[in-house]
């Protein structure tokens, strides 16, 4: 089967019923990167933050307790697997579900910390992630209504673009922007990174980075600007 998506050849597909995972060299690379990073996180230990005490020579170490460490490692692994799945999925509704899973797990990774400032900003991020599930699924359903299908491979072979598809993809992008917390909505996530436990926090960054790249690819496939 010689089909090309955005100029790159499809190497292979994994059919799970109507949900078909497809692999091009582009998203296969992102899939491998997400899996490799997840593996590194699974075998690594957390950092320890050192705070200097004022007026003396002593230091104060902020360590992560073992119970909290295990919980955050579990959620970080789930987040990495969801990111890897979102990279190769060939179905828009499936993609939105992966993004939703990433959003809720991101809240959990910082929900286990013991700093009130961080918990406050995690709460605000949780509010955005919940609001963002509305445009996320509305966008996917509008694309389904406008094209009659939500398989990316089938949408790729369509020749037309309607205003409703454009509106659906704007809503999809807004939903992903809210779930992953990109540029104008970044302040909540920036506060969340101030807690100890570095490698688990980095998966929050990596997942939003990869998901944004992937959603731009999907929007290019839907709207065909070239």
């Amino acid at each position, binding site marked *: 089967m010689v089909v090309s998506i955005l100029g790159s050849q499809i190497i292979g597909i994994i059919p799970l019923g109507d949900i078909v995972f497809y692999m091009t060299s582009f998203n296969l690379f992102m899939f491998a990167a997400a899996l490799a990073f997840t593996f590194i996180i699974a075998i690594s230990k957390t950092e320890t933050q050192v705070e200097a005490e004022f007026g003396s020579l002593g230091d104060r170490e902020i360590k992560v307790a073992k119970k909290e460490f295990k919980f955050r490692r579990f959620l970080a692994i789930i987040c990495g697997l969801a990111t890897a799945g979102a990279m190769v999925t060939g179905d828009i509704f499936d993609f939105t579900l992966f993004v939703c899973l990433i959003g809720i797990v991101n809240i959990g990774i910082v929900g286990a910390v013991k700093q009130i400032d961080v918990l406050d900003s995690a709460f605000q991020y949780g509010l955005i992630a919940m609001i963002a599930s509305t445009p996320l699924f509305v966008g996917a359903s509008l694309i389904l209504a406008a094209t009659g299908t939500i398989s990316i491979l089938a949408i790729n072979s369509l020749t037309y673009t309607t205003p409703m598809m454009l509106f659906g993809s704007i*809503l999809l992008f807004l939903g992903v922007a809210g779930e992953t917390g990109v540029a104008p909505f970044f302040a909540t996530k920036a506060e969340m990174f101030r807690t100890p436990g570095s490698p688990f926090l980095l998966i929050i960054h990596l997942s939003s980075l990869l998901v944004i790249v992937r959603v731009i690819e999907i929007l290019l496939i839907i709207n065909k600007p070239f």
Partner: protein
Amino acid sequence: MKSIGRIWNSLANPDRIPRLYALVLGIVLIAGFLIPIGLNDHQLYPRPEPQLQINAQDPLAPYDRGGVTFEQRGIVKAQYPQYLPAIGEITAYLSPIAMGVSGTTLYYGTSIYSSPGGLIDEILYYTRGFDTVLESSILMMAFVIASFIALNFTMRRDD
């Protein structure tokens, strides 16, 4: 110039971000009323007219897809039928309790009996089965996080 800097600074406050997001979303949704509605007639998962099966006094009302279990395939469409060799074969299956209940009431299809043991929605469990797996794992993660936070109050109580 100074006012632009003030706007950027106000974006650094996490409390204002959900409001900003809600505002942007509201503007986009209101702008959506201006978009001409262009629906595609060849939908992937077609449905009958909303009240058609109810007016026909069908007890399985919105979910009747026809067919006989393992003998005659029901009406289930799929994007890739080549990957679904057994599509439509069990969509007419009713458990013994479900048969009894559907004989007594006209509203069986919308009652609690119909799911999950009674009527098997093949689009949910076979055609798009991976979505169901993901949905339940999202729910499970939400419960995991909520129970962890409820069991270990993750706040410094002495602060």
